[in-house]
């Protein structure tokens, strides 16, 4: 039987979207479970940020084999930015990397994100979504900075959950 390309692509596309949706949903189901275990005294924001830090460190370590300094610091920053953007895109975000104002800066811009939508379903405050993303990225950079002996920093300039229409992060090498 010949391949019906449209049908195959549609099947794959739907499967991918469903999997991406499940990433957020699974995280928020675990969040509910963790908060239940932690009890009433636990601050949801603290739990969320601790989780973001743990995930970020783990994901950041996983990036080490894919990064290098062979093309200098400018290329290195771009490479790190692409890694960060890549993890986000895997979750369903529409995200791009652009050059920053300085050579050792890069801008990560996200026009569409699956996390705020999922958060609404689970009644998660938007500020938690915002700060979790910020913390996640910051934590990813910890081991990368130490490993390559290049101190990296990231600043959140805009956030969709804050109603600013897009996410914008500036990634740069600290002087």
């Amino acid at each position, binding site marked *: *039987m*010949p*391949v019906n*390309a449209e049908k*195959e692509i549609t*099947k*794959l596309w739907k499967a991918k979207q469903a999997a991406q949706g499940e990433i957020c949903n699974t995280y928020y189901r675990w969040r509910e479970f963790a908060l239940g275990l932690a009890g009433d005294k636990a601050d949801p924001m603290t739990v969320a940020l601790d989780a973001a830090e743990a995930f970020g460190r783990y994901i950041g*370590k996983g990036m*080490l*084999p894919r990064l*290098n*300094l*062979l093309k200098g610091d400018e290329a290195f920053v771009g490479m790190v930015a692409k890694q960060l953007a890549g993890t986000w895109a895997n979750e369903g975000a529409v995200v791009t990397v652009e050059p920053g104002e300085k050579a050792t800066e890069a801008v990560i811009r996200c026009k569409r994100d699956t996390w705020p939508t999922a958060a609404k379903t689970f009644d998660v405050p938007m500020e938690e979504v915002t700060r979790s993303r910020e913390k996640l990225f910051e934590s990813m950079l910890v*081991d990368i900075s*130490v*490993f*390559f*002996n290049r101190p990296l920093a990231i600043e959140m300039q805009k956030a969709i959950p804050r109603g600013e229409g897009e996410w914008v992060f500036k990634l740069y090498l600290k002087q």
Partner: protein
Amino acid sequence: MAKQLFEWDYSSYPGAKQYPNLFTPIEIGNLIVPNRIKYAATEDNLNRHDGFVTDADVEYMRRRAEGVVGGLCFMQGVYMDEPGKGQGYVGQAAAWDDKFIPGLKKIADAIHSEKAVAGFQLMDCGRVGAVEAPVGHGPSAVPQRLRIFKPMAEMTNAEVKEVVKQHADAARRGVEAGFDVMEISGIVGYLISNFISKYTNRRTDEYGGDIRGRMQAVVEIIRSVKEAVGPDVPVGIRLCSEELLDDVGGNTPEESMESYKIAEEAGVDYISCTLGWQESIFPVISRDIPQGNWLYLAKRAKEHVKVPIQMAYRIFLPKFPEEAIAKGELDMWEICRSMIADPLMPKKVAEGREDEIRHCVACNLCLARLFRDAPMTCYISPVCAHEHDPEFFPKPVEDEDDKKEVMIVGAGPAGLECAYVAAQRGHEVHVYDKREEIGGTLNEASLAPYGDEELMTCVNFQKTMCGKYGVELHLGTEVTEELIEEEAPDTVILATGPVYKKVPGVDDNAKNIVNVLDVLAGRAEVGEKVVVWGNRKPGIGVALKLAKEGKKVTIVGEEKSAGFDINPSFKWRYMIYLRQNGVTAYNDCTIDQVGDGGIVVKTFDGHRFPVQCDTIIVTERDANESLKSAVQSEGIELYVVGDALVPRNLSSAVHDGYRIGLRI
């Protein structure tokens, strides 16, 4: 005045005439070594997990000591701390207490029993250590890139001093055990190299900073070891001449040469020139690197220091060190994997028996095993690490009535291996092959790129051994049921190689479907867009050959990852080459349909997509059942070996053949 421990006269050795520089004495400190050959310290994971030496390791070393014909023979590096932060291998020998001395003495005695010079190596594995401890130690707590290694803790100043003392104490134990030469290991990411590299040493105290600061701990170790062993025991060091860590900000070559000079100033009697770390992203010792490739580094080292320079690293043939020594670019030939594969390798060189050397094929299976906490083994040598076990060596058939007439069908690596071992034991062995030449499918497999021509060294060795033990070859003779009936052998070994699978739902004679062997040998025409069916090594080999010729190549295979049958220490090279040559691999997939101008690939979960191609190359194999029933119906003892039994790789063929050769 320098002393010589054992007298050696090489004047009657043919190899000494052919390679005069290799068999010329050399002064190392206050010791005269009779030749320029050294078995370099190599881990083998053969010792007890508590660091005590085993009989297996003693016999492993005795065999290598015999091989160096009076040269240097180093036991594996010992770790020196009780918590095991410096232990990098589960079977690594220890020297953190006097209680280990008796075991270590057994190794020194074994080496001396072969009149070789016994070397003792001090090896704190640093960043790649703590194999059985929760946290490793190093100059700075730089995270690990590879998850198999333990998290790092920064050493305090006092801990650095303690490590210096541990080296001195362990060196003293080595001398008490009877060793003649002391060596400090500073290679491939071990502790010494961690201190020297600016990638892993970020300290700002006396042990950090510029290269001189980063060498401070090393200088203290050298001095303390020299003091511990006294003037009669030479002290050497293995140091990186190039770290190959530019991707993470490692040392420059200039800094590495500076480290050589500082080590010399501190009093070392020789330097072993090494390169690369386990973390390096560049290949150093795999088969894709040409032999002799790195000798320029020894030459450069010689330009920077006066002490003797030793080097291993893809120097498998004696002509390379002979020439380098003659030109003053090297002083000693270090041998590592070549003597894992054939412990008597340099002895055979000396005796003019080079054609009897079982050459290493630089596959790095030995390393892959060590990193996975398994005992040493060798891809190409079935006896490696079994030196202590007489069951692994051919025993002559004592009783004439037990001597058999053996028919081996197939003159590939499995059949030839079996043939010479059986013949060595006293059987009458006949090898048949329908081809006109020996080697079986290895003739074609060795035509794949990136160094696979070295695989033929296996067959060359087997050919010599078959000749030596009187194996009779019947080439150009296809074995049939009638021939078996006519010859009526006592035993038949089927080493016929594999059969190739049929592409599902397609006539085998379809003109665009060709066999991998025909393609590698240039007997088949191949179009510009090629699908290689099968993602094991044969598929990868032919894919790379065609991609290098400019073809668009797609691999489709049922294994979950391409190169499933290649050991991890070499597989990464192939993955890079596939990517560099633009080869696409669809793994965990089958060919669902073949049509004009292409195929339909089906993924494991049922998705289907088209791939354009004008040629399909079959590399998928099955066991070969032919002749089995004919032999069995005659009531003849039957064994099946190599790919005929289960399609695997060269190693399995050799190991199968050897073991059955012992059993007949």
